[in-house]
């Protein structure tokens, strides 16, 4: 039995080419792993050319791990101190949502819940999954994973909602009135989580998702070639 060669879609890298990240011009890139301190500039826009984003994996991991660590204080520490003449109250993100729910505006409570609790968690877990899948050279459904990456990219910003809400409340409810609201360290930690996850998604290179598919295809092809040769030999004999 003779195996036919699989048609492989040409990735720019496999042909020794690369698109400029700034202007999109496709240029020749001498090697996939350039030597240290080697820098090639785009002929049209003079930006540094990389076949893949520079050290994408390790940078994403570093940012993501930091975000995980800061996620704990972000949720445990209060993000807002409310003090009036009679009582003082400290609000974490969750207690703010519970307050909204109890005061009857459950739609707003859901909105804030999704923006501040679900989104950051979902983002961190999904990014972990994507990074692990690259690390283990998994070729499982690259298109679905790319779509997941795009989704992460589009929702990440909405987690900043809580920070802005605190910032506006703090400004509106000032010393002049009897109640004073202050931003607390939790807000800072939470803002850091959001910024770090946004940066992690930014440094993540979705093209790496497709590289493992290519590598697997290459392996398959090698196997096909070997099998073909075996089959041919057997036929000759």
């Amino acid at each position, binding site marked *: 039995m003779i195996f036919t060669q699989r048609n492989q879609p040409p990735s720019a890298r496999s042909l020794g080419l690369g698109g400029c990240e700034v202007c999109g011009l496709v240029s020749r890139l001498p090697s996939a792993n350039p030597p240290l301190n080697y820098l090639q500039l785009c002929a049209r*826009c003079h930006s540094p050319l990389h076949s893949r984003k520079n050290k994408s994996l390790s940078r994403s991991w570093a940012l993501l791990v930091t975000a995980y660590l800061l996620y704990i204080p972000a949720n445990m520490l209060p993000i807002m101190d409310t003090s009036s003449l009679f009582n003082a109250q400290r609000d974490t993100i969750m207690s703010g949502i519970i307050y909204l729910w109890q005061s009857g505006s459950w739609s*707003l409570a859901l909105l804030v819940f999704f923006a501040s609790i679900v989104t950051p968690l979902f983002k961190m877990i999904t990014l972990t999954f994507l990074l692990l899948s690259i690390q283990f050279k998994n070729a499982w459904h690259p298109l679905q994973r790319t779509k997941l990456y795009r989704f992460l990219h589009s929702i990440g910003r909405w987690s*900043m909602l809580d920070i802005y809400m605190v910032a*506006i409340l703090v400004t509106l409810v000032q010393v002049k009135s009897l109640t004073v609201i202050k931003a607390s360290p939790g807000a800072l930690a939470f803002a850091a989580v959001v910024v770090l996850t946004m940066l992690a998604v930014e440094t993540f290179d979705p093209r790496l998702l497709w590289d493992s598919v290519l590598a697997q295809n290459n392996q398959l092809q090698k196997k096909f070639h070997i099998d073909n040769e075996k089959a041919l030999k057997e036929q000759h004999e």
Partner: protein
Amino acid sequence: MLPALLIACNQCDLLQYEVKLVEGEKACCSRCNALLYKNTAPHYNQEIAFTVSAIIMLIIANMFPIATIIVQGQVIDATLFDIIQTLAMQQQNSLALLVFITLLLAPTVELLAMAYLLMQLKWGWPKHYITQAYRLRLSVKTWVLTDVFMLGVLVDLVKLTPIVTVKVGIAVWALGGLIILLTALSQAFDTRKMWSQIDFHST
């Protein structure tokens, strides 16, 4: 094959040929469906109109209060600048910086860079610092969080309404306009068209 006619998808690295599009059409990657380029109107009139009006909206959004509350006869205004000032006064400098960058600096830089690029493209001026301006725009684009802020304002207004008298300020309308204009601008502007009009060795 001219290198300018080749296109490598920036999300999956698939190498493809550029095809001619009718005005208003978009080209997407045949493997991962990411947007590659689009055919927009040949002149930059739309983009310029959006940029100029967005700059005006940004100025209005910064000059007028976002909300006003009235407590026991006292009137408290909050402009964007007040928010930054209050956070800085409460020793929350990093939060103040974050608000400053995402709501003031990033939109301003994006719009100014855009205006600079468009002027050079529209009137065929000698092209200086195109790459720098474009990369500046690319790097700040993610950090324009005006739409998130708008949602925050609305949630806060609903939260405060039962407790005190709150008035929506002019800045909220300007912010709404700014969000729509920024979206329209990024829809109308095509990177690939811009770069195809820039000669090699002129950057």
